[in-house]
């Protein structure tokens, strides 16, 4: 049986989660997708679950996306992490790029998710 990747989508907007899920499912209907609406929920849901790809909204109430991404990366060193954001400060970009994370600009489109998935494949190759 072939390996089925698991994706974690963290975003406080239900609609954003839905769109990302739809775009991923379109090309990979068999992948396992976990959704979380905040940092706490994301940590709980991935405590006992290995994740291959994470898309994390940067601006969320409570724990911010970068703090969460850093923690999740610590727990899942092999996961490919992408930050999703409408506007990004240079300092954040530097820190995230240094940590090997990718970026997707909001609003998320079919093309940006496709690019993200091919980055994942490259990082796995």
């Amino acid at each position, binding site marked *: 049986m072939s390996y089925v990747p698991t994706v974690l989508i963290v975003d406080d907007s239900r*609609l954003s989660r839905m769109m990302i899920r739809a775009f991923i499912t379109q090309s990979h209907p068999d992948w396992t997708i976990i959704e979380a609406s905040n940092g706490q929920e994301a940590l709980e849901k991935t405590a006992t679950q290995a994740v291959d790809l994470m898309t994390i909204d940067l601006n969320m109430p409570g724990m911010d996306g970068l703090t969460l991404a850093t923690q999740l990366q610590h727990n899942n060193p092999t996961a490919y992490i992408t930050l999703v954001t409408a506007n990004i400060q240079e300092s954040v970009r530097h820190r995230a790029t240094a940590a090997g994370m990718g970026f997707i600009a909001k609003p998320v489109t079919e093309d940006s998710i496709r690019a993200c998935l091919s980055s994942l494949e490259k990082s796995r190759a």
Partner: protein
Amino acid sequence: MVSASVVPHNPVASSAPFTVLIADDDRINRMVLHAMLKKDGHTVYVAENGHEAVTLFEQHQPDLVLMDVMMPYMDGYEATSRIKALTGERFVPVIFLTAMTDAQALVHCVECGGDDFLHKPYKHAILKAKIAALERVRQLYTTLQSQKNALASHHRRLQREYEVAEKLFSTIVHPGCLDAPHLKYLLSPMSIFNGDLLLAARKPAGGLHIMLGDFTGHGLPAAVGAMPVADIFYAMTAKGYAISDIVAEVNQKLKAILPTGVFCAAALLDLDATYSQLTIWNGGLPDVLVCQPSGGPLRRLCSQHLPLGVVDNTRLDRSVEVIEVMPGERVYAYTDGVIEASAPTGEMFSQPRLEVYLTQDCAPEQVFETVCDGLTTFRAGGPQRDDLTLIEITCDAGLANHTSPEATTSYVAKAPACWHMAFALDAMTLRTLDPLPQIMQMLMALQGLHAHRERLYTILAELFANALEHGLLGLDSALKHTPQGFVAYYTAREQSLAALEHGCINIALTHTAMGTAGQLTLRIEDSGPGFAYQRCQPDLAANTTHSGRGIPLVRALCQTLTYHGAGNCVEAVYVWSQGETNVSQHEP
């Protein structure tokens, strides 16, 4: 302290001369200052006391005032207060001329509006430097002031443009029949323009269409897309199109006009004339909830589709869900703004919390207000992050029919003419097209029977549905009498129609003139086996089609209704007169 040596390097020090007012009761002092200022090219006015200073200030509006403190008639403090009150938006520096070193007295100078001090004995270089420094402040102030004015006038112009746009917007995106007694709604936009969209329109043959939409983002950019959507929704509903047709049309429009990444999560709801059947297409909105009048578990109609404007029509799934609803049941549709509204702690209102409010033990007619109050309390005055919309529809045909008639443009029917038109629809056409809106449109174009539109649509829709569902598809309407059977009936209808290979339906409309009256004969014939109509009259009375209220209603609307042949052909005669009042008519 500005040193005299830097002054020559300061371009402002030798700047354009300006007008200076000197107020001093000492003649020698006045002469000294006057001479210094004259030498630098300034225009000088001289006052001997505070009172005269105020008068001269009013007359000449100088750019700078040199003010002694102790003077007869009015002292420097008082004169400065008055002068500062006269300057309005202009910045006119006042320099106090003083030999005092008493801290309290100096503080008092500043309190009265003084900007600087010049100590006796006066030195020309220092006076010049102070004037230069104050000139810099004055220029800064002037620049700031003119920017402020420019900003204010820009803001006013924008406000006016917004008001005009808002008027245009609210005319096109009007709320339709949202004021009907069985509808309650909450609209809470973040700005003048709402990125949420709530539309309601009565269908030509009774019943209701509702559309709730939520555009990506908020404010003007989000609201612009609402205009074509509202146009399409109202026009197509009035012509009798089904919500799946409206979904396709709106999607195509939005896909074409919206920039990438902007789309509209939407739910379209269709309630039939008896308010017993709900048809829904939910693309990206939160679960639409159906609540029983007595509390208890609710039904969730979750999003099955992508939002409108994401994919093109070839990839759009326009299939709808149909459920049976009971009298008194309430349907709730809402945008993400409701469940994602946050408390000051950052916690979200959430769908589970909304469901708790909806299923709590409370009089049904108070549930909506309780939810709104709960939402306000939860947010506790915190900032609103998204547009927020909630609608409640009570399934109560009685209440719905109290709706006051919508204002209709008073179309005038055309003089009765003689014409005939006929359609022969084969299986492929029937599978892919609802012919009724087109037929109605032609009927209106030919004869202008807008006042009769609802009645004619009802007759046509009922007879066509009978021909298709019973005549061609062979469905048994007895199936509909139980809640399970109801869904089964609808599913069977969809499946049989999709598989329809043979058969046809012929529709013929014949209009004849009889003076000022017109007679329209509708003849619908299907290629099915027919039925023993001579023996089935009582059964017909109980036969309601999936789309409405059945044969008894049609019989009531027509002059005559007769079956022919094997029962596979029906003829309805409708008579109208030009003298009738031209308002939209309602079923009894």
